[in-house]
C-alpha cells in the first residue's frame, strides 16, 4: 500500500504540473482527470474507499466530462495553442511560482512542528460511517450545501432557458 501511495502521489504531482504547462486545452484537461484519478488512488490507500469512489464518479466521471465537453465544443485550434505557449513564458511563471512557494512554506510550517502528520490507513472509512457523519454532526452543512446546489440548479435553468 505504501508503494501504491507513493506511485499515485508522484503521478498526481506530475499530472498536475502538466495541467499547468500543457498548451493543448484538451490534453491539459486529460491530465487533470489523471490527477484526480491518482488522488482517488491516494484516498484509497489511506482507507477512504468511499471518498475514492466518489472522487472518480463525481469529479472525473461527471464534472470533468462537462469540462472536456465544453472545451471540445469551443473548437480551439492551433491558434489558441500558440497563444498559450506565449503566455507560458518563463517570466510569466515567476510570480505564480513565488506565490505557490509561499503557500507551500506556510502549509509546511503550520503542519510540521505541531505533529499533525499521523500515520495513514489506520482505519477503513466505510460508506456507513460517512453517512452517519454527514447526517449526524454535519447535517446543517449538508442542508446548506443542498440549498446552494438547488440555487445553482435554478440559476442554471434560468440562464439556459431560451427566451422565445
Amino acid at each position, binding site marked *: 500500500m505504501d508503494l501504491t501511495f507513493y506511485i499515485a502521489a508522484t503521478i498526481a504531482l506530475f499530472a498536475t504540473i502538466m495541467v499547468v504547462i500543457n498548451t*493543448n486545452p*484538451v*490534453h491539459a484537461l*486529460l491530465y487533470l*482527470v489523471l490527477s484526480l484519478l491518482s488522488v482517488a488512488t491516494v484516498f484509497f490507500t489511506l482507507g477512504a*474507499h*468511499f471518498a*475514492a*469512489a*466518489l472522487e*472518480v*464518479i463525481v469529479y*472525473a*466521471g*461527471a464534472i470533468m*466530462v*462537462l469540462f*472536456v*465537453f465544453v472545451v*471540445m*465544443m469551443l473548437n480551439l485550434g492551433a491558434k489558441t495553442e500558440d497563444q498559450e505557449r506565449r503566455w507560458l513564458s518563463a517570466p510569466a511563471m515567476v510570480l505564480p511560482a513565488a506565490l505557490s512557494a509561499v503557500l507551500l512554506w506556510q502549509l509546511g510550517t503550520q503542519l510540521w512542528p505541531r505533529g499533525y502528520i499521523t500515520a495513514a490507513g489506520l482505519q477503513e472509512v*466505510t*460508506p456507513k460511517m460517512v453517512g452517519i457523519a454527514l447526517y449526524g454532526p454535519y447535517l446543517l452543512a449538508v442542508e446548506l450545501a443542498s440549498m446552494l446546489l438547488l440555487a445553482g440548479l435554478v440559476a442554471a435553468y434560468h440562464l439556459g432557458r431560451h427566451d422565445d
Partner: protein
Amino acid sequence: MFSWITPDLIAIVWGMVKAIIILLGMVLTAAYMIWLERRLLALWQDRYGPNRVGPLGLGQVIADMIKIFFKEDWMPPFADKFTFVLAPFLAMSLMMLAFVFIPMTPNWGVSNTNMALLFFLAIAGLAVYAVMLGGWASNSKYSLLGGLRSTAQTISYEVFMGLALMGVVIQAGSFNLRDIVAAQDGLWNVFPQILGFIAWVPAALAVVHRTPFDLPEAESELVQGYHTEYSGMKFGMFMVSEYVGIVMVSGLTVTLFFGGWDAPLWFDRIPGIGAFLGEQIPFVWFAAKTFIFMAGYILVRAALPRPRYDQIMSAAWLWCLPIALINLLITGAVVLWRAGA
C-alpha cells in the same frame, strides 16, 4: 527448498490464475458475442448470417480477427494523434475492468471488494471519455457530434443509473456484489426492486450504446458517429469493447436483480442434478441467465427503432429519474419500517 512457497503466495498465484481465466473467458465470450449477434439477428430477420467459415460459421470471428489485425493501422492526418490512440484503449480496458467486480460463483470472481458497485459506477462514468475523446480526436464533424451526443446521454443516464441501483444496495445493506447476491436468496431483487429494474434496463443499454440508445453511432444519421474515422485494430477495439460491455452489463444485471448464481425457481431442489449443479457448478446458472440477457440485447436491436436524441434525453429525465427516485423512497421506507418493527 520450497520454503518460499507460503500459503499467501499460493493464494495470490491462484487468484491470478483465476483472473486470467476469467479475462480470457470474457474476451472470448465477447468475441463470440459478435458471432451470436450476427446469427441471431439473421435468424430473426429471415436470412442466414455468417455460416461459411467453420461449423455454423463459428470460424467467422477468427477470420474477422485475422483480417482486422492485418489491416493497415491508418490514422487520419488531421487527427489528434495521442488522444486518437488513447480512446479505443480506454474503451476496451474500462469495459474489461468493470468485469472485475462481478462474482460468477461463490468462489469465482476477480475481486471481492466492499465497494464493488461504486467502483462499477465510477468505471461507467469514466467510460464516456473513450467515446468523447474518440469523437474529438478524429477532428471530424460527424465524430464530434457523436461524441457530444454520447456525453450528454451518458451523463444523464448515469444520474439515475446510480439511483436505480441504490435500492438494491439498501436492501442488501452493502455495496459488495457477493452480499447482494446472498441477500437475494429466496427472492430475487427483480421482484421487490421492479421499479429499480425498470430504470436500470435503459441505463444499462445506454452505457453500452446499444439500440435504441445507439445515438452516438447512429449510422443513418452520423455515419458511424464517434468511430467514423477509425479503422483496423483501433476500430476493432471499439467494437469488441461494445460486446465486452454487453457481457459485463448482462452479468451485472443477473448479479443485481436475478440472484447471480442462484438457481431459478425450484431447480436446485430437483434431486441429483439440481443439487449437483447448485453446489458443484453454480456457474451454469450464472452463465445461462447472462446468456438470456445477452440475447435480449440482440433482440432489442432487431426489434426497436431509434428514438430521436431529444426524446431519449427527455425519457431519461422525465421517466427514468422519477422512477428511480420513487423506488429509492419506497425501498428506504420499507427498510426503515421493517427495522423499526
